[in-house]
């Protein structure tokens, strides 16, 4: 068993990798093994996922101790999600062994994995939107009473799992915010009695307070003996929660690290070989020319008895990044939808360059120069079964270089997409590839890149760097800054407070559909911002 820990031969470290300069306080896999207790919950030995011409996971080793929180980090496309899907039985490995509690296990489906006590929350949620929370949680694992589903029992157990912050079991999943959907996903897994929990980028969608809540419950689960594998691009979170860290790069295990003895800088360097970026806006480029303006806009909930957005007024100037801080689900989505014409305003006006566009269609708004990076990239941003170039075209299908009159300009569209791929380092073999074959972070890079290259006047950006690794994040920030210097106005919605504070020229806080505070990003600290966001300080 110990050889599993030392299986990374020196030769297998990629030459462009950590080279002769391993991070100062990082351990090699072999040396970490000596302090390890014998009981391993999971052991992946020499996992290889080979495709014609390539090795996606290249003899990866991963050892996770019973009852620990084990972080897996690595740049976009490194193979993290693939490895987890193998562990979860969703895709079969070509070589290598999955050992669960020391026992070699072959799983051919997620069902097998669940039986082995493994549960997974995916990077992209897999929920039935048209069903309630309760139905989603119990789907496929319904407690029964004879032939009938025992809803009472199900409800009790869900409340037990959820603790005090339990979700209303009768709400429709489609109405939930991203953060809430994630809690449904976790509840779903625990409901099935998982003892090993795989979380693929669970914090990407959460604001710090929610992350803290998540961490509290993860620690609680650890106390109960649950083993957790945790994937994240947010390295400070990784250092906070993890008991040990495995770094993957280009499909290979590069190193393991001890979170108590490594800094985020070193970790970033191990991952991408680059320095940790800072989201810091240098010179102010704000002008007094108003680009996009909302005047007292509001929108009612479906049943019309409650304002989801109430009396929101804001101005985005030329050359300005206006940040909106808030816990997911406080009206951010609706605000963007109104500005974009995806939802009608029940009160107020939207003006673009002084012209009233309240009744303008989404397409016309796009043509008038409003760009959009949607919050929900799978539901709102991408055609997963379509090639990259068609995805780049989405939203710009009526404009050059994607269109020539009523015809699609295939050559122009492909050329533009290639530019996006080059400039934003989208890891793909080409623009004809269907986008579902890209890793999550690379999909996001395409979404961001296509908007930036379209040079809109105003960009409504929701979580622009969600799921993007630290290296690529720096590039995205840089391109936003550059465009801002050219006059771009940005509405920035983000759960990443460092990103918000670092990029924004002005910062507003949204709470229960209202803008409750305006703060100076130059003065405010993440902690202060956090308390505004939860309504603790006002």
């Amino acid at each position, binding site marked *: 068993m110990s050889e599993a820990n030392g299986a990374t031969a020196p030769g297998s470290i990629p030459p462009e990798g950590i080279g002769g300069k391993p991070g100062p306080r990082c351990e090699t896999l072999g040396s970490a093994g000596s302090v390890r207790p014998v009981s391993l919950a999971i052991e992946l030995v020499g996992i290889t996922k*080979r*495709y*014609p*011409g*390539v*090795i*996606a996971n290249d003899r990866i080793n991963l050892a996770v101790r019973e009852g620990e929180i084990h972080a897996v980090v690595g740049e976009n*496309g490194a193979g993290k999600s693939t490895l987890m899907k193998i562990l979860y039985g969703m895709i079969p490995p070509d070589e290598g062994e999955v050992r669960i509690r020391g026992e070699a296990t072959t799983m051919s489906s997620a069902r097998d994995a669940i039986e082995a006590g493994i549960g997974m929350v995916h990077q992209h949620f897999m929920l039935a939107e048209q069903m309630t929370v309760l139905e989603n949680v119990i789907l496929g694992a319904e407690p029964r009473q004879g032939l009938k589903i025992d809803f009472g029992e199900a409800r009790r157990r869900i409340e037990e799992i959820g603790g005090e912050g339990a979700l209303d079991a009768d709400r429709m999943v489609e109405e939930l915010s991203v953060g809430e959907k994630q809690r449904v996903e976790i509840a779903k897994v625990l409901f099935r009695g998982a003892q090993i929990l795989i979380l693929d980028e669970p914090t990407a969608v959460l604001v710090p307070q929610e992350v803290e809540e998540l961490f509290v419950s993860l620690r609680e689960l650890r106390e109960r003996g649950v083993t957790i594998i945790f994937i994240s691009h947010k390295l400070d979170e990784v250092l906070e929660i993890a008991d040990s860290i495995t770094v993957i790069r*280009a*499909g290979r295990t590069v190193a393991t690290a001890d979170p108590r003895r490594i800094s985020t800088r070193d970790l970033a360097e191990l991952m991408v070989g680059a320095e940790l970026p800072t989201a810091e806006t240098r010179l102010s480029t704000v002008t007094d020319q108003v680009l996009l303006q909302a005047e007292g806009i509001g929108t009612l909930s479906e049943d019309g008895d409650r304002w989801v957005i109430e009396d929101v007024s804001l101005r985005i100037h030329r050359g300005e990044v206006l940040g909106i801080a808030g816990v997911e689900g406080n009206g951010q989505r609706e605000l963007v939808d109104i500005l*974009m014409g*995806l939802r009608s305003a029940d009160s107020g006006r939207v003006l673009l360059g002084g012209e009233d566009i309240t009744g303008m*269609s*989404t*397409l*016309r*708004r*796009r043509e008038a120069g409003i760009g*959009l990076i*949607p919050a*929900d990239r799978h*539901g*709102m*941003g*991408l*055609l*997963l*079964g*379509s090639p990259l170039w*068609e995805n780049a*075209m*989405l*939203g710009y*299908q*009526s404009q050059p270089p994607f*269109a020539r009159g*009523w*015809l*699609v300009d*295939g050559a122009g569209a492909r050329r533009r997409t290639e530019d996006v791929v080059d400039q934003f380092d989208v*890891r*793909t*073999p*080409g623009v*004809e*590839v*269907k986008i579902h*074959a890209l890793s999550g972070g690379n999909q996001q890079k395409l979404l961001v890149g296509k908007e930036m290259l379209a040079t809109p006047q105003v960009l409504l950006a929701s979580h622009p760097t969600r799921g993007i690794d630290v290296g690529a994040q720096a590039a995205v920030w840089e391109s936003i800054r550059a465009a801002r210097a050219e006059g771009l106005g940005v509405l920035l919605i983000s759960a990443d407070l460092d990103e918000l504070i670092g990029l924004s020229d002005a910062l507003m806080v949204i709470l229960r559909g209202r803008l409750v505070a305006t703060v100076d990003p130059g003065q405010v600290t993440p902690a202060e911002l956090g308390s505004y966001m939860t309504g603790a300080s006002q």
Partner: protein
Amino acid sequence: MRANRRLVYAVVSSGLAIVFALLVSAVILAVSGNNPFEAYGQMFEYGVRVDSLASAVNRAVPLYFSAMAVAVGFKMGLFNIGVEGQYRIAVLIAAAVGAAIALPGPLHVLTIILTAMAVGAAWSGFAGYLKVKRGVHEVISTIMLNYVATGMGAFLLANWLRQENPPGDLVIKTPEIPQSGRLPSLNQLLEWVGLDPGRVNLYGMAVLAVVAGFGFHVLINHTRFGFELRASGASAGAARTAGIDPGRMVVLTMVISGAIAGLVGMAHLLGFFHRYTIDFPTMLGFTGIAVALLGRNHPVGMAAGALLFGWFDRATQILDLRGIPKEIVFILQGVILLSVVVAYAVVEVRIRAAESRAVTGALRPGAEDES
């Protein structure tokens, strides 16, 4: 490379499905006391005659339009089951209009065709309207509209559009369309290249079918509308975010589908019947669904499917004369369809896997070690 692989899979799986269907049909023939080899032999012999081939094309043309009408809807996830009703009401009204007006040649024909397209478009567009404004699922509304079309067609024909028959003629029909409103056959073209189709007249509409097939390809793959159509079908949410109005797309798609459906009856009307009668061919709309599935909504695939169905339809005529129940052709068509659908599902899974592999393959070109 990937496109080629797809094509190979498509051809191989369709081929296998047809072979499978022939085997099943052979068993059915044998069980019913007929010699399958003999039957197939006769079918083949009869089917490859020039007149049979021309007739097969004639039978294929309406099916091709019908399949394209269905396929346009499929591209955005709309299931237009109403092609049947759409083409029947369209051909009736177009026949009546054609008989009632007098125009110089091409204009006359064009008027008839445009009338049929307009009626089909309106009939189908209504289902689209119902879906958008009233939330009625198009499958329900188009099925209902099929019944309405049948009933309304019978009523219109019996009361307003029929010609006064001479005593003794009991067939209810519209007046005959004059010579200027007929489409010449392509037989001269065939004779010119040395083929003699005998008593069969190769429909002039075959030319329009080819043009329409090309138009279908351009519409779907090279126009903005086609892109918006496919995007709406792939992800309603993403399409909406991209500024594509879902309601408008539904209505437009149904209108276009219906306009193509209006062309279904034109080959028989302009090339053979020259009037609408109660024995005008039916079921073309439903068979079109099968052809669209067989051809996977692809213009070339659907053409192949339509020709195949047309050929079987013609070739099995001989069985009747030799005392073998002609119904076997229906069974054959059903079995082909079923096997193709199954083969398609199986192959699709394999294609996806292969594509995924190819992608990752190209991603790290450094490690090229196997095919």
